[in-house]
């Protein structure tokens, strides 16, 4: 891969050709703020927060959209850059419902972080603010566009990841907003509730409903694991607060999903602490199901299989397995049914 040389904040560095300035900075550990950039979706260049100063032309340029070129010299925190960033943040705050106290993302909000970083207490431009009703009709997540900063990450996520195309920008200018067609509730749109929009939202405009009021971001411990739903094996992070799972995030750094989730993986975790969840095997004794040990349960099942097989033959039995299992597990299962139970009565639910 061809390398080029650029000077960032006075320091000469070699980077791979084809990278944007923002990606180059990221690699070098230089934190250039951005709200509308996410590696998972197309680059838009909309928020204008990642502006850097090009020393040669004296211009401010959006680092997320410009490919680094050999011999470039840029400053990422020059007074001019800082002034421009302050204005962008200030303008976003002027149209933002700054009620951080009640916001789920308080402490994990990039708008908040950057405003703090650049010392903005409150907007210098109070004026008209559009008001949106909060949409909490669907069971999965809340849409509060009073907090939306129109970075468009949700739109790109929706069109690019599940390709559901449920939402897009509507209207234009100061009236522009993110909307479903004809503003129908999400559940009447083509939304598949994969929650990718929620995952990518940099502020508190899209928040999972189950997660509400279960813990502040700094109280949450992230525990990496594999999603229990299907055989794909998506990598997820359990959001844990005081030994309770209070939410799930995609883990972005690994295959197979690189952060992408589906409706079940993202929102279907409430079974974990459900009071009716089975936590021990049950055996029916005198017509009643009672908890028992795994040993007893397995012995009991094996014994019953044998009895049926001996009395009625293997075809009296059948096995149905699940898409939650891996291919290997499904292979083993059919092997077990054919070899041990001696029947071809084996099938698979093929979906969750």
């Amino acid at each position, binding site marked *: 891969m061809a390398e080029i040389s650029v000077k960032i904040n006075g320091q000469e560095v070699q980077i791979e050709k084809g990278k944007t300035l923002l990606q180059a900075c990221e690699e070098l550990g230089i934190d250039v703020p951005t709200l509308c950039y996410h590696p998972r979706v197309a680059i838009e260049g909309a928020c204008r927060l990642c502006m850097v100063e090009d020393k040669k032309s004296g211009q401010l340029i959006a680092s997320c959209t410009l490919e680094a070129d050999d011999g470039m010299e840029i400053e990422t925190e020059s007074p001019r850059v800082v002034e421009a960033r302050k204005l962008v943040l200030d303008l976003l705050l002027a149209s933002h419902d700054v009620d951080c106290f009640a916001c789920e993302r308080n402490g994990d909000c990039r708008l908040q972080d950057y405003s703090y970083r650049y010392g903005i207490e409150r907007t210098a431009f109070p004026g008209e603010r559009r008001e949106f009703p909060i949409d909490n009709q669907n069971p999965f997540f809340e849409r509060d566009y009073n907090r939306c900063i129109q970075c468009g990450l949700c739109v790109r996520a*929706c*069109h690019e990841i599940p390709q*559901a*195309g*449920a*939402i*897009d*920008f*509507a*209207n*234009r200018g100061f009236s522009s907003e993110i*909307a*479903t*067609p*004809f503003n129908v509730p999400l559940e009447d*749109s*083509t939304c598949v509730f994969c929650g990718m929009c929620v995952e990518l939202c940099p502020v508190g405009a899209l928040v999972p409903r189950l997660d509400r009021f279960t813990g502040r971001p700094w109280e949450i411990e992230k525990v990496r694991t594999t999603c229990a739903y299907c055989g794909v094996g998506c990598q997820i992070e359990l959001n844990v607060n005081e030994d309770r799972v209070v939410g799930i995030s995609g883990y972005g750094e690994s295959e197979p999903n690189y952060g992408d989730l589906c409706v079940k993986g993202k929102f279907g975790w409430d079974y974990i602490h459900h009071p009716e969840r089975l936590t021990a095997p049950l055996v029916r004794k005198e017509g009643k199901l009672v908890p028992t040990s795994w040993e007893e349960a397995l012995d009991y099942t094996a014994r019953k299989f044998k009895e049926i097989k001996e009395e009625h033959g293997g075809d009296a039995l059948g096995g149905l397995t699940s898409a939650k299992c891996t291919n290997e597990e499904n292979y083993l299962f059919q092997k077990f049914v054919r070899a041990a139970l001696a029947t071809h009565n084996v099938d698979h639910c093929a979906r969750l």
Partner: protein
Amino acid sequence: MAKTIEQENYREKVEEIVAFFPEKKGALIPALQAIQKEFGYLPRPALEVLSGSLRMPLSTIFGVATFYAQFHLQPRGKHIVRVCMGTACHVRGGQKLLATLENELGVEAGGTTEDLNFTLEEVACIGACGLAPAVMVDDETYGRLTSDKLTEVLDQYRKGKEG
């Protein structure tokens, strides 16, 4: 999206329009222009059919339809009635005129009558303060109106339609 009876009413026409653009690329805006020409506005079921024909998310079509000033998602009347809401008209009973119109036409401000003869709109100030209260119908300004006179004005346009 489930097929609805309304969609079926528009299907033939919309598919005829789409067939006019053998290349699907770039067809959306001309197709919307043709649909609006046909129906006077962009009916929702027609856009739902279009979404299927062009294999394009309805959200994208809705976005384009709301982005460009030319497109209307609601039927527009043959005559546009604009009631002045400026201060002078307000003081002289603009609000009352609006109420009269809403009553006479059976629609609220922003609405269109069922026979598609009138669209009723509020407007900030038409600069005819000396004639307050004033109403504009299409390009014509009517001033010093009372509810009775306004009814007379409306009748002219109603007759125009029938005649």
